[in-house]
């Protein structure tokens, strides 16, 4: 039954199985160091007090949500260009984590905004773009889930990811333009006097978020690969071996 003789999903499957725990450990260690710095090393901010400590998750989450969307677009472009199925699987595996970070950026932004500027939500350029990015994630996930034919779902998701990625700068720029024009809520996000320890803490938390995202995406892609490659010989063997234990 050696019909679908594509080796790359198989190689990627075992590679992902080896790498995922490693990235998971890196994420845990980095998060522990990052959290220690954010709560015990970084000093209290003179203006905002303790509440600024939210930025140690807010900023990495916002970065991550953007990076993951770009990574999805990257994998989609590779998938459409080279026809490699693993790229589509990666793109699909990244989407839920990207949406998660996008939501976290909004949530922590709101909780930070309330004590700092007296409002949970402002139609500020960054928050509004973040909200639109969340809609892009929702659209991508909804589209790929609505299409039953797996190959069509892969490619349609890839197209919408690419279209979205092209639009992200346009959206950000237009929202910023709209915001400065209306002057409705001018919020200065850089009111904190950033000291080195804060920056280091933020960077370490961001690296932890990177490692976490990679680990989670790799674990998720393993399920996707098994599901989609189940007709191949090697996946059959793997399912038979693992299925008994599940």
């Amino acid at each position: 039954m050696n019909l679908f003789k594509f080796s790359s999903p198989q190689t990627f499957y075992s590679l992902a199985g080896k790498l995922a725990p490693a990235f998971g450990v890196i994420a845990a260690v980095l998060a522990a160091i990052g959290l220690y710095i954010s709560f015990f090393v970084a000093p209290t901010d003179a203006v905002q007090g303790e509440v600024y400590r939210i930025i140690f998750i807010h900023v990495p989450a916002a970065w991550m949500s953007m990076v993951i969307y770009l990574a999805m677009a990257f994998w989609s472009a590779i998938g459409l260009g080279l026809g490699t199925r693993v790229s589509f699987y990666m793109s699909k595996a990244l989407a839920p984590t990207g949406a998660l970070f996008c939501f976290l950026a909004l949530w922590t932004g709101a909780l930070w905004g309330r004590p700092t500027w007296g409002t949970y939500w402002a139609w500020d350029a960054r928050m509004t773009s973040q909200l639109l990015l969340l809609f892009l994630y929702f659209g991508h996930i909804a589209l790929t889930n609505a299409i039953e034919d797996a190959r069509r779902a892969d490619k349609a998701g890839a197209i919408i990811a690419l279209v979205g990625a092209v639009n992200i700068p346009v959206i950000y720029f237009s929202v910023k333009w709209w915001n400065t024009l209306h002057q409705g809520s001018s919020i200065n996000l850089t009111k904190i006097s950033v000291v080195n320890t804060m920056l280091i803490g933020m960077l370490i938390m961001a690296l932890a978020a990177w490692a976490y995202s990679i680990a989670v995406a790799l674990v998720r892609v393993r399920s996707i690969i098994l599901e989609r490659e189940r007709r191949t010989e090697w996946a059959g063997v793997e399912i038979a071996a693992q299925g008994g234990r599940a």
Partner: protein
Amino acid sequence: MSKAFIAVLRRDLLLAWRSRADLLVALSFFVVVASLFPFGVGSDPDQLRAIGPGVVWVAALLATLLALPRMFSQDFDSGVLEQLLLSQEPPVVWVSAKIAAHWLSTGLPLVVVSPLLALMYGLKPSAIEVLALALLIGTPILSLIGAIGAALTLGLRGAGSLLALLVLPLMVPVLIFGAGSVDAWASGIGLRAHLLLMGGGLFAALALAPFASAAALRITMD
């Protein structure tokens, strides 16, 4: 212009004319949505004048969205899209023709009717001109972006709401600059920047969206 482009454009416009009752429904939807807002926010003339351009734009966005599934679905069901994909011409040619026909039959009427709605919102005559001009540049972008979504959601269950979720976030920049142009003009900043940006957006959409829609249609038909 290529033969297939002309043939598709002529046929789609003829079809639009034959089913003009459907187009009137979309147009009435536009008018009804735009006239609902005063009931919600009150009839204070100053307030209405302030929200007028935005309301007309949002209504235009929704009316475009309502008409989008029609762009490909009939031809998808009847097998015409298959035939078009087998044409010698690259798909992007006739996809462009279909988008053009769609805009001419659904977008352009919105532009024509918009001054009427602007009057109801108490906009000054010069502001009305600006609004119509912005709609004239902006609605083709909506059709172009919408075509991608319409091609991707073709034949799916719940295609309508999925389409809205996909394309509405992408249309926000058009809304911002379209509605903003009237404000900019009214506040004396001048129109130039807005119109230039929208024109640039239109060219970018013209250059990219037909290719993306054609690729999406190939994927859908596979």
